[in-house]
C-alpha cells in the first residue's frame, strides 16, 4: 500500500499522470489545487490573502468565503477531474474530501502567530488546522470493495466545521494511519534542490535526522511543508518518502525508479 500526493500547480499533465498511476494497485491518491485556487478566487473577486508564520512558513488566510471557493476548486474541480480521468482509465475511483465521513478530522487552530509589517501578531478567525485522526475504517472499507480513494482537503474539526489543512501533511497522516510503506509527493519541482534556481541540483538522498537542518537551509516555500510532512510520515512508521516531479510522462514511475529525492 502506498500514498501518492499530486500537487495542483500549473503545467502538470494530468492525463499522463493518470495513465501512469492506472498501472498500479493498492494506493490512495491525495491531491492539491493551490494554483487553480488562486486563479479562480481572483476571478470571483476574492484574491487570496497570504500570511507568514513567525518561523517563515507562508500560508493562505482562510476565511469563510475563501473556504467556499476552496471547496469549489479542490473538492469540485480538481477532485472530480481526477476521478473522471481515473474512471475513464478503468480505475474505480471515489472522490472524497476530509469532511466526508470525517475522513480527516482534527483541531481548528485557535489563533496563529504571524508576522505582519514586521510585527509579531495573533491572527484569529482563520479556518485552518491540524489533522489528528484519519477514518481508516472507511478508507479500508472502500479499498476492500475495489474502490480507489481520491482524497482532498478540507478536513473537519471536532466541532464539525470545515478547516483548511495542508495537502502534503494530509498525505503523510493518511500514509501513517494506513501503515503504508511509502509516501510519494509529486509537485512542480523535481525534488529537494540544493539550489532552487537549478532544477539539476536535486539532492538524491536525505536521512531522517538531516530533515530539520534541510528545512532551514535548502527548503523554500511549500518545500518546507513537504519536508515536515516527510518527517511526520517517517516518525509515524512509513518506511520511505519520495519527492519527485509531477510533470511530463510517467512522473510516478520515474520517481519510484529513483528520479527525485529519497528520504528514509
Amino acid at each position: 500500500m502506498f500514498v501518492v500526493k499530486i500537487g495542483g500547480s500549473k503545467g502538470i499533465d494530468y492525463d499522463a499522470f493518470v495513465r501512469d498511476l492506472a498501472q498500479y494497485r493498492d494506493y490512495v491518491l491525495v491531491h492539491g489545487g493551490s494554483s487553480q485556487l488562486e486563479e479562480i478566487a481572483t476571478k470571483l473577486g476574492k484574491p487570496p490573502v497570504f500570511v507568514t508564520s513567525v518561523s517563515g512558513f507562508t500560508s493562505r488566510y482562510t476565511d469563510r468565503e475563501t473556504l467556499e471557493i476552496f471547496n469549489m476548486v479542490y473538492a469540485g474541480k480538481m477532485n472530480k477531474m481526477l476521478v473522471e480521468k481515473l474512471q475513464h482509465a478503468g480505475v474505480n475511483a471515489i472522490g472524497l474530501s476530509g469532511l466526508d465521513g470525517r475522513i480527516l478530522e482534527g483541531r481548528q487552530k485557535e489563533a496563529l502567530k504571524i508576522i505582519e509589517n514586521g510585527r509579531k501578531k495573533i491572527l484569529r478567525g482563520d479556518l485552518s488546522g491540524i489533522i489528528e485522526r484519519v477514518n481508516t475504517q472507511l478508507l479500508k472499507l472502500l479499498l476492500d470493495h475495489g474502490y480507489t480513494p481520491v482524497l482532498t482537503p478540507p478536513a473537519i474539526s471536532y466541532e464539525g466545521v470545515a478547516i483548511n489543512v495542508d495537502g502534503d501533511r494530509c498525505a503523510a497522516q493518511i500514509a501513517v494511519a494506513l501503515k503504508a510503506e511509502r509516501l510519494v509527493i509529486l509537485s512542480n519541482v523535481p525534488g529537494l534542490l540544493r539550489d532552487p534556481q537549478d532544477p539539476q541540483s536535486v539532492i538524491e538522498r536525505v536521512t531522517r535526522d538531516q530533515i530539520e537542518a534541510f528545512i532551514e537551509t535548502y527548503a523554500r516555500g511549500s518545500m518546507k511543508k513537504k519536508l515536515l510532512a516527510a518527517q511526520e510520515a517517517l516518525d509515524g512508521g512509513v518506511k520511505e518518502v519520495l519527492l519527485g516531479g509531477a510533470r511530463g510522462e510517467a512522473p510516478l514511475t520515474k520517481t519510484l525508479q529513483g528520479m527525485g529525492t529519497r528520504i528514509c
Partner: protein
Amino acid sequence: MKRVECPECGSEVELPADVVENEILTCDTCGIELEVVSLNPLKVALAPEEEEDWGE
C-alpha cells in the same frame, strides 16, 4: 509611553507607541509572550500556544 501589568509575573510591560491590536509582546522580566487583546480598554493576556501548521 503606555504600560501594562504582566498577567504572569505582575511586573510592568512597556508598550510601543504604535502598538496595534493582537500584537504579541514579550515581558522582559519573565519572558512570557503576551497578546494585546484590545486597545481601549487596554488589555493584555497570555498569547495562545500554537505549533506550526498551515492549510493549503
